[in-house]
């Protein structure tokens, strides 16, 4: 019969909307409003998983995010999510869930044999076993352990879902929408501030949804509905399904909203959204988490927290069993009995371990015909894969009662986790037998059960105060008792008594830790792994340290507690990454002529954030053939290359020249207007930082280029120099990289190509525009800057036009007879001329290393001057730039190390490395540059370039670092 354990009426589920789902392949039914856990219980499914170490049968312990046992794999395929708490997963039509950590099935799990090997698997067993033989660790033990360990399995497929992020600002963030949080939000809204109310459940109300209480003489649910309406009318931003997971600096709180996890498929919605809430103040109204009691067999399916039993009975209209017993050290037992009886269940006992059971409680039990066993405990829960009976201890020692549900309550722990995210330690409160928040993050205060005020009346009152409201506005509630007497464990239990369910830590493990000297709570945690599972010990931390306190004769206050770090509950990595995934991990920048290059069939490579064309293949060409052709075209005719990615910086002002003299190693202020100069910038520590071209457009106007990769670093550096080091200089520095599309036009025919593109009145002849001159003229009818500079060593120009004209200029250059060339050919051409690029200007080389020592001015101070003169950087044996010519037609790889010809390839014979290498179409052989100890003093020697990773080596001659046209005759054509 479907849903045999569902009550006929009642609950907050929507009986008009039945939902079909499956668990371990079995088709079941529930209702809209169910969680997976409540629907499973309604169908009588109580065995839900197998425990981590011992593979013991486990069921549903709680009704909330603190659940340690009922972890399932939710959904199928790429969307499969392991370790999902069934108590939080909202039921939707078509939901598919599977139990974890069992083989071959939940009912018959072979690894339950681990239970028999328990003495070996006690706490700390990793440190005492698997030691011998040593060789077995990597080949045998570790693979076995890896297969046996762990709970769920990740899908192994790329996450198919989308994740979003959003920021919200508020005067007050209220965390939790139970009676305390609602009260705080109402009060704060009443003060006129901006309020954000975050609730991890799908509905507001907290305990009001699960316990039958009255407020102002009406059912609490009526008050709840009205409170929600008032909050919405006041414009409070209400975020449901949103868990605040961390408290960060500056009043910033992280939250994770489960936007679409309750839907069959997200559609266009992000699956989850990461919230960043910036709030002046926060109210911690996170409630309290119920404590289990430690006794033999307390992990059996059918043993549940009493508050959870009330949730399933009242909110979800489920009968979690047929015959129930209640075992509680507090007066919550009364409400549990009443609710169970009203739901039509038989209650066979109230077991109270306290020295005295209050008369009011005895009366309630009597009125329902429930026997009370005072001064007694439950020594053992008995059953195979589910609870079938309990054996009592204490005054009723030996009494055996048959039941299939045991509602246990060891009291309540305020959920203080967020309060300690800034390092503040919770404080022990004797009367409450619980920890309450100690020093909280700035701006935070606690209210309700989170602050130790467990009753509804206390929650409403303290919530209102925390929200800034007045005492008089607080509604009244019925009488409630929050009296509790600490009771942590049944001593000498029969069978295993669990403290941390998820990590399978028993009372014997805690005792073992004490015997072995791990009595500090931080050691207890790490030695036993208590509190280290995905539930962060929500149902085990306090019990564990209370037990350790008893074992070591200390008070709990003396024993202390561990604290917590974000996140409060597990967060999918996808939620933290948001949209920054795959290709969008970081921005991708395209040059103005990108589409044109793509239309020419050019492949692209990543150069920092940019995409740059590598070459422009013609039909039937291999990549090397394209590169060779492009190199020959530039040396013999004319080619053009997109160099828009270079950083461009506009420097203007009365002191612009002085400023540039300060940041560059060579002198800039001596440039005449209309001239340009190669410039080198050092770091403060004397090493080479970046190089580029500086052009002077007028007395007070310069434009400087940087390398592609260093553009933003150089700009930051210049901003720092201007604002902090030279604030007295009157100069403005403005980045203009994206303003200009820029092309290098190079080759013996470059001028004739350029002449076709400039306006009639412009003269770009050799005398009007000599080498290193700059002019402003119209090119293809639009304003342009023409720099006669050369990276290739040929007669060349760089033409800059507004970016919107970039593609048109590329087409015009092509029509005028220049052939496009890409990054690869650009590299070969500069290599043939020995120009350093990032591979040589790598942050570890000085100007002198690169053969640029003479650029350092002796007539002025500049960044890096002082430290560039230190002894270590003057050492003649420093690796310095040389050229490399392979012998006998060999190839060369960048990264190969240079070892003298006759010496073995070992580190003590390592004299340097190859920085750049390529096939030179101009010379018909491979060439390279390298950094070699002693630099150009070694010209004429023979070395081996060795690449041990790929087992390649080549004999090379050390030659001057310029291979083509050393005199530079082509430049002045």
């Amino acid at each position, binding site marked *: 019969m479907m849903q045999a354990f569902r009550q006929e009426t009642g609950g907050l589920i929507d009986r008009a909307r039945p939902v079909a789902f499956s668990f371990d392949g079995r088709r079941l039914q529930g209702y809209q409003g169910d969680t997976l856990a409540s629907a499973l219980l309604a169908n009588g499914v109580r065995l839900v998983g197998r425990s981590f170490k011992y593979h013991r049968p486990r069921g549903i312990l709680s009704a909330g995010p603190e659940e340690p046992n009922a972890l399932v794999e939710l959904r199928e395929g790429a969307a499969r999510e392991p370790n999902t708490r069934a108590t939080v997963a909202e039921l939707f039509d078509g939901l598919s869930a599977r139990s974890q950590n069992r083989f071959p099935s939940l009912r018959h799990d072979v690894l339950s044999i681990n239970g028999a090997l328990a003495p070996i698997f006690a706490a700390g067993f990793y440190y005492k076993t698997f030691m011998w033989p040593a060789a077995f660790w990597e080949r045998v033990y570790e693979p076995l352990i890896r297969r046996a360990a762990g709970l769920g399995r990740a899908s192994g497929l790329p996450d198919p879902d*989308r994740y*979003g*992020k*959003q*920021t*919200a*600002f508020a005067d007050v963030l209220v965390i939790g929408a139970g009676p305390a949080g609602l009260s705080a939000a109402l009060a704060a809204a009443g003060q006129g501030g*901006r309020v954000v109310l975050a609730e991890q459940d799908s509905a507001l109300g907290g305990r009001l949804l699960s316990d039958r209480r009255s407020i102002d003489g009406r059912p609490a649910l009526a008050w709840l509905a009205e409170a929600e309406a008032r909050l919405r009318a006041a414009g409070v931003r209400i975020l449901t399904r949103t868990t605040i997971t961390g408290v960060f600096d500056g009043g910033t709180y992280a939250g994770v909203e489960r936007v679409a996890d309750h839907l069959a498929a997200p559609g*266009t*919605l*992000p699956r989850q959204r990461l919230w*960043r809430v*910036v709030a002046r103040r926060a109210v911690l109204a996170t409630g309290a988490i119920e404590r289990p009691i430690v006794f033999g067999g307390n992990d059996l399916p059918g043993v549940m927290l009493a508050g959870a039993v009330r949730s399933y009975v009242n909110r979800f209209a489920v009968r979690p069993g047929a015959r129930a017993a209640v075992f509680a050290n507090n007066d919550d037992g009364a409400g549990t009995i009443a609710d169970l009886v009203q739901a039509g269940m038989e209650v066979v006992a109230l077991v109270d371990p306290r020295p005295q059971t209050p008369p009011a409680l005895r009366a309630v039990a009597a009125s329902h015909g429930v026997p009370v066993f005072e001064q007694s405990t439950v020594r053992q829960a008995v059953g195979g894969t589910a609870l079938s009976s309990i054996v009592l201890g204490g005054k009723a020692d030996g009494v055996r009662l048959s039941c299939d549900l045991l509602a246990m309550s060891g009291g309540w722990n305020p959920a203080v986790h967020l309060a300690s995210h800034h390092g503040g330690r919770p404080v022990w409160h004797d009367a409450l037998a619980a920890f309450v928040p100690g020093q909280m993050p700035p701006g935070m205060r606690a209210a309700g059960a989170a602050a130790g005020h467990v009753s509804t009346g206390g929650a409403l009152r303290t919530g209102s105060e925390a929200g800034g409201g007045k005492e008089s506005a607080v509604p009244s509630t019925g009488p409630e008792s929050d009296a509790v007497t600490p009771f942590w464990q049944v001593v000498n239990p029969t069978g295993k008594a669990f403290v941390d369910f998820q990590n399978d830590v028993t009372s014997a493990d805690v005792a073992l830790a004490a015997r072995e000297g791990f009595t500090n709570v931080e050691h207890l945690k790490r030695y036993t792994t208590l509190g280290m599972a995905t539930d962060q010990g929500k149902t085990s931390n306090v019990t564990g340290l209370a037990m350790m306190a008893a074992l070591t004769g200390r008070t709990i206050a003396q024993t202390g507690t561990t604290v917590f770090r974000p996140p409060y509950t597990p967060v999918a990595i996808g939620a933290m990454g*948001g*949209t*920054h995934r795959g290709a*969008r991990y*970081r*921005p*991708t*920048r*395209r*040059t*103005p002529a990108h589409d044109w290059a793509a239309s020419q069939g050019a492949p692209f490579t990543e150069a920092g954030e*940019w995409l740059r064309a590598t070459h422009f293949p013609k039909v039937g060409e291999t990549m090397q053939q394209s590169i060779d052709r492009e190199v020959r075209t530039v040396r013999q005719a004319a080619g053009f290359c997109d160099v828009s990615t270079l950083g461009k910086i*506009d420097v*203007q*002002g*009365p002191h612009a020249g002085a400023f540039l003299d300060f940041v560059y190693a060579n002198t800039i202020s001596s440039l005449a207007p209309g001239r340009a100069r190669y410039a080198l910038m050092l770091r403060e520590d004397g090493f080479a930082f970046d190089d580029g071209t500086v052009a002077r457009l007028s007395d007070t*106007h310069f434009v400087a280029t940087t390398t592609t990769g260093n553009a933003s670093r150089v700009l930051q550096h210049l901003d720092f120099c201007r604002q902090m080091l030279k604030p007295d200089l*009157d100069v*403005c*520095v*403005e980045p*203009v*990289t*994206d*303003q*200009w599309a820029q092309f290098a036009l190079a080759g013996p025919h470059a001028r004739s190509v350029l002449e076709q593109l400039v306006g009639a009145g412009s003269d770009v002849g050799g005398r009007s525009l000599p080498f290193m001159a700059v002019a402003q003229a119209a090119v293809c009818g639009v304003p342009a800057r023409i720099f006669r500079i050369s990276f290739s060593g040929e007669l060349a120009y760089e033409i800059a036009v*507004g*970016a*919107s*004209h970039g593609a048109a200029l590329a087409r015009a250059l092509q029509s005028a007879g220049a052939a496009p060339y890409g990054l690869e050919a650009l590299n070969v051409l500069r290599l043939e001329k020995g120009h350093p690029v990032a591979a040589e200007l790598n942050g570890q080389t000085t100007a002198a290393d690169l053969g640029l020592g003479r650029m350092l001015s002796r007539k002025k101070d500049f960044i890096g001057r002082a430290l560039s003169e230190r002894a270590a950087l003057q050492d003649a044996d420093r690796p310095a730039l040389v050229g490399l010519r392979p012998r006998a037609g060999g190839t060369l790889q960048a990264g190969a190390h240079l070892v003298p010809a006759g010496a073995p390839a070992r580190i003590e014979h390592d004299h340097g490395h190859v920085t750049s290498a390529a096939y030179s179409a101009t010379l018909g052989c491979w060439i390279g540059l390298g950094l070699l100890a002693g630099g150009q003093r070694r010209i004429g020697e023979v070395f081996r370039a060795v690449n041990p990773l790929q087992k390649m080596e080549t004999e090379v001659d050390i030659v001057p670092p310029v291979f083509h046209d050393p005199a530079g005759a082509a430049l002045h054509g």
Partner: protein
Amino acid sequence: MADAPVSVSLAPPRSVAGIGAFAGGAGLPAALRAELGADLPAPSRCVQAGGVAVSCLAPGRFLASGGRAADLPARLARSLAALAAVTDQSDMWAVFAVSGEAVRDVLARVVPLDLDPRVFREGDLALTRAGHLNVRLWRLGATGYEIAVERSFAPDLHHALQDAGT
């Protein structure tokens, strides 16, 4: 909030000039008033005058933008010659106009700013970040904003704005 329409469109190209005041540029406010009819705004504010918007990005740093035909950078370079550094930035920026009832919800998924209409008022602007991108955000009207990014980052910002729609 799901389906309140928010429109995102790439603004047509416009003339843009960067203006950096020189230390000795005490005459800058007067020169700008003469040229454009606009008073220099306070930092993080934007004023409109005769089709040209003048924004103050930081003390001494301004941006003037107006219709294409205005030839703004050249005019300003001439009239502000010894008073400020003028740079033509007309091709440098991709500007997206974002507007609609739910515009602040969408923008809250893109930039980490307090967009409450009482805090980020009409005529305010901010230099901020959208993920890894440096962006500039202007509030032009009740529910009308412009967000600008350097041209080569435009596809990434467009993606971010689209993603922020839900």
